[in-house]
C-alpha cells in the first residue's frame, strides 16, 4: 500500500536494504536492477544523510547488472549469473547479497534459484527480494534484518550474558547514525556490556552471525524490527527491549540505562555510579551557560523516534516550550500513532504540543504554518518554510543534504550538549 507523496523522505526497499548491507564491513550488495537504481538509492539515502558515502561499495561502485530492454524481454538470469561470477572474482567480501530492482521484480527473475546454485557450491551468495514497488526504505531496513535472520545468524551454543544487540538506527539514512550508535555503545560499555551494532567499529558478517548469542536486543525505535525481535526470541532465545527512539539528554538516557540494567539485572551500585557520573558531566556544563540561552517556543518536523527524543529533551530537560510536532515517517498502524502521540504529549513539566502525522512535504509545510514558534527542528527540506516563517532551523533528522555530519550526534548524555551548542543563536 502506498500513496502519492511530495518530496518523499526516503527511497524504496532497495535503498533501505542497501543502507544496512553497505554499513556492515566486507559485505557486497549486487544490484539486479535497471541501470540507475544504484545512484538513485545512494543519492536518496546516504546522499541526504549528512553527505557520507559508504566506503566499501556505494553508488556507481556497486556491482549492478544494469538491466536493459534485452533483459526485460528475454529475462536477466544469465546476466545475473555473469554478474555474480565477476563479483566473486574481484570483490573481496565475506558475503554477497543479490538485491532486485523493480525491473527484475516485474519480469520475475528467480534470484532465489540463481543464488541457491552458488550456496550449494559453498559460496556465500544470498537473495533479498527488494523491488522498489514493495515499499519504502524503512521497510527495506526491516527486510535486511529479516535476511540476516534467514541466512546468516546461527543458533548459539551458549548465551553471552554481557553481549547486547543495539538496533533501530538506520545507517546512511539517519544522518547522526554513527555518532548515536557510538555514544550508546560508550554508555553501555561503562555498564560492562559488549555491543553489537553491526555497523560501527568495523563489525562484520561474523558479528551478525554470532548475534544470536546476545543476552538482549535493545531497539531504539518506536516501531522498527518487530518481526526481527520476534524471530530472535523464537529462533535464538534473545528477548528484546524497546525504547521510543534514540535517547537524548539525562532524563531519557537515564531511563535507557535503567531499562537495560533491569532487563539484564546489572549491579545497582554500578548503574547508579554511571548515571551519577554521566548526568554530572552534562549538568556541570549546563551550569556554565545559565542565562546565555534565550527562551524559545519550538516546533518539530521529524521521524517519530527523533521527534520524541528532541521534544522530550528540549521540553523537560532544557525548559523550552513545545508548540507543535509533525511526525513525518509513514506510519500505517493506528495504535503506533496513539502510542507516539502519548509519548509526545505526556511531558513532565511542559504543556503538551499539538501532534500531527504527515509524510507529504506540502502537508508538513501547511501544518507547520498553523503554529507559532521561533525555532524549528526538522530536516533540510524545512529550510524553505523556515525562511518563509522567518524562524531558526536546526537540522536534526533525515534528509540532511546541506550540512556535513561525521561522528557528531545528539544522542545520549554527551550528544545533548552538542544539540545545545548547535541551537544557540546570537541573532
Amino acid at each position: 500500500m502506498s500513496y502519492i507523496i511530495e518530496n518523499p523522505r526516503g527511497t524504496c526497499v532497495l535503498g533501505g536494504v542497501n543502507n544496512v548491507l553497505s554499513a556492515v564491513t566486507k559485505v557486497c550488495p549486487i544490484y539486479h536492477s535497471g541501470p540507475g537504481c544504484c545512484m538513485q538509492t545512494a543519492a536518496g539515502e546516504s546522499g541526504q544523510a549528512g553527505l557520507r558515502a559508504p566506503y566499501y561499495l556505494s553508488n556507481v561502485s556497486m556491482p549492478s547488472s544494469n538491466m536493459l530492454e534485452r533483459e526485460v524481454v528475454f529475462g536477466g538470469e544469465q546476466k545475473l549469473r555473469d554478474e555474480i561470477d565477476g563479483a566473486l572474482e574481484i570483490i573481496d567480501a565475506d558475503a554477497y547479497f543479490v538485491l532486485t530492482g523493480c525491473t527484475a521484480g516485474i519480469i520475475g527473475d528467480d534470484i532465489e534459484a540463481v543464488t541457491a546454485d552458488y550456496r550449494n557450491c559453498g559460496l556465500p551468495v544470498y537473495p533479498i527480494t527488494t523491488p522498489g514497488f514493495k515499499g519504502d526504505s524503512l521497510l527495506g531496513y526491516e527486510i535486511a534484518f529479516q535476511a540476516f535472520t534467514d541466512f546468516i545468524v546461527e543458533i548459539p551454543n551458549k548465551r553471552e550474558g554481557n553481549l547486547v544487540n543495539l538496533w533501530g538506527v538506520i545507517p546512511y539514512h539517519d544522518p547522526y547514525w554513527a555518532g548515536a550508535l557510538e555514544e550508546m555503545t560508550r554508555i553501555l560499555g561503562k555498564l560492562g556490556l559488549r555491543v553489537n551494532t553491526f555497523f560501527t567499529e568495523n563489525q562484520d558478517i561474523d558479528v551478525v552471525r554470532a548475534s544470536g548469542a546476545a543476552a538482549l536486543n535493545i531497539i531504539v525505535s518506536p516501531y522498527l524490527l518487530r518481526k526481527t525481535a520476534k524471530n530472535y526470541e523464537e529462533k535464538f532465545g534473545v528477548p528484546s527491549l524497546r525504547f521510543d527512539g534514540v535517547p537524548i539528554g539525562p532524563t531519557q538516557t537515564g531511563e535507557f540505562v535503567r531499562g537495560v540494567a533491569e532487563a539484564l539485572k546489572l549491579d545497582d551500585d554500578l548503574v547508579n555510579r554511571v548515571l551519577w557520573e554521566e548526568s554530572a558531566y552534562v549538568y556541570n556544563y549546563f551550569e556554565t551557560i545559565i542565562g546565555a540561552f534565550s527562551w524559545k517556543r519550538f516546533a518539530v518536523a521529524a521521524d517519530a523516534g527523533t521527534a520524541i527524543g528532541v521534544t522530550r529533551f528540549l521540553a523537560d530537560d532544557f525548559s523550552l516550550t513545545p508548540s507543535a510536532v509533525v511526525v513525518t515517517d509513514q506510519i500505517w498502524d493506528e495504535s503506533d500513532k496513539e502510542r507516539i502521540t502519548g509519548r509526545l504529549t505526556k511531558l513532565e513539566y511542559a504543556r503538551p504540543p499539538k501532534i500531527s502525522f504527515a509524510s507529504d512535504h506540502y502537508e508538513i509545510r501547511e501544518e507547520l504554518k498553523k503554529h507559532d514558534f521561533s525555532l524549528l527542528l526538522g530536516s533540510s527540506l524545512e529550510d524553505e518554510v523556515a525562511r518563509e516563517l522567518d524562524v531558526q532551523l536546526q537540522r536534526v533528522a533525515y534528509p540532511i543534504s546541506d550540512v556535513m555530519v561525521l561522528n557528531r550526534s545528539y544522542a545520549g548524555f554527551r550528544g545533548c550538549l552538542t544539540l545545545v551548542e548547535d541551537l544557540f543563536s546570537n541573532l
Partner: protein
Amino acid sequence: MATTYSGVRELRPYTYNDLGGDSMRLAGNFEKKCLKSADRTFSQGLQCQQINSISCVLSMSDSAFIIHSPQGCSGCVSGGADGYRVGQAHRGVKLIKSPRVIVTNLDENDIIRGGEAKLREAIRIAGERYDPKMIFIFTSCASGIIGDDVDAIAADAQTPDGPILIPIHCDGFRSKICASGFDAAFIAIKKYLLPKEPRKKSSGLVNLFAPTSISYKDQLEIERLLALFGATVNYIPFYSSYEKIQMITAAEASTSICKVFADEFMKELEESYGIPFAHTVMPIGIRNTDKWLLGIAALLGKEAPAREYIEKEHKRVQPKLDEIKGRLEGKRVFICGGTGRSFAAAALIDDFGMQLVGLETPTYDFDAQIDIEYLNGIHKNYVVDVANMQPFEQVNLVNHLKPDVFIGVPAWSARLGLPTTHVLDPKRPTMGYDGIVYLGEKIAEQVENAGFNRKLAPYARLPYKKSWYEQDAFKYIRDL
C-alpha cells in the same frame, strides 16, 4: 535524421559504450568501422537516463514535476534540488524555493492493475497546490514495463486553461547512456511546448543550452563573452520558464556548452524553425574556449571581432598560464569524466604541457572520434576506457599506469594515494579565459599538495581483491 530521432543514444549508428584499449588502435578501428558492439559481463552501476531528464528541467521555476514511479526513483532529486537551491542563493534569491516534486509511489497493486489512477490524482494535486504553468511527468522502469500509457493519460487529463502536461519518456532500462535523458526531455519540450508558428525574430538573441552542472559564475562568463558580439542570451533550461522556452523560436542562433546536451534538439530547431546552431566543444581550456567562441561568432557574422578578442585574451592570460605550466609541465594525467568534461579536461591539460596517459569517457561515437584523433596528435598513445565510471576498471588502470595526477570523480583513485583534482565544479568558475586560470591554479595546488590522499591511502579500504590489480582491466568486456 533529427525528426525521427528516438532519444536513445546507442541507437545512433557507430555508438559504443563498452570498449577499451590503446587510443591509436581504437581510432584506427573506428575509422575502418570495425569496432564491435560489446557488453560488460561484470559491471558496476550506471546513471540512468531518468536522472538526466529530471535534472535537465528541475530548475524551471514555474513548473511542478511528477515522477511516475515507486518512491525510490526520486532519490536523485536531492542532487538536482541542491543545485537549484544553491543556484538561487548565488543569484541573490532570499526566499529560496525547493522544486515541487510529486511521486506517484507505484506499489504492488499498481504494478498489477496499472498506475493510471494515481497519475491522474498526482496531476490534480500538482495543479491545485502550485498552479504551475507546466507539469513535467517522468516515466520510470516500472511504469514502462507495466505499460502505463502516460501520453494518453496526459492528453486526456489536459484541460484548456490548466497547466501544460508534458510527459517525458525516460524509462531507465531503455538506454545505457544517461545523456539519452537529456534528449528525452528536449523531445518532450519540442512536442508539447514549442509554438507551431515561431515567435518574431529577436535580433541578437542566442539560445544557450546548458545542463544544471554549469555554475552561475560560468553562466555569467559565457553571457559576457556573447555580449561582446552584441548577442543576448536565452539560457535554457536552467532557471528557465515557459516564456523563455517560447522564446527559443525567436532566436537567431543556438549553441550548447556541453557536447551531449541539446545537440539533437538544435538540429531539430534548425530543421523546424531555420535556427542555425554551433555544436563544438565545452568552453574549457584555451583551445576549446577559442573553438567554442568562434563557432558561435561565425553564426552571428562576428568572426573578425571574435578573433581580435581571442588574441587580446590570450595575451592577458598567457603570463598566468606560463606560470602554471611551470608547475605542471610533463606531469602524467589520467582523466575520467562525463562526455563533455572528459574531453574538455583532456584539451585543457595541453595548455599546461601535461601528458595524457589514460582517458575514461562514457561513449565512443563520431563526436568522440574527432576528439580522440586530436588528442592522438598531441599525446601519441594513451589508454582509452569507454565506460561511465566503472571504478573497478579505473583503479586497475590507475594502479597500473601510475599517473602523477588523476582528474575526475576522486572517490576511488584518491584512495590509491595520488593527487586528484576535477574540472567539474557546479558552484565555481571553470569556463572561458578566467576559468582556465582558475582551473589551472586549482590543478597546480592540488597536484602539489596531495597530503590528504597520501596520508589516507594506507588506511583506505577499496573493495577489490589484490589479484584484480594484476589482471587485464578490460577482461569483462565481451563482444556481443
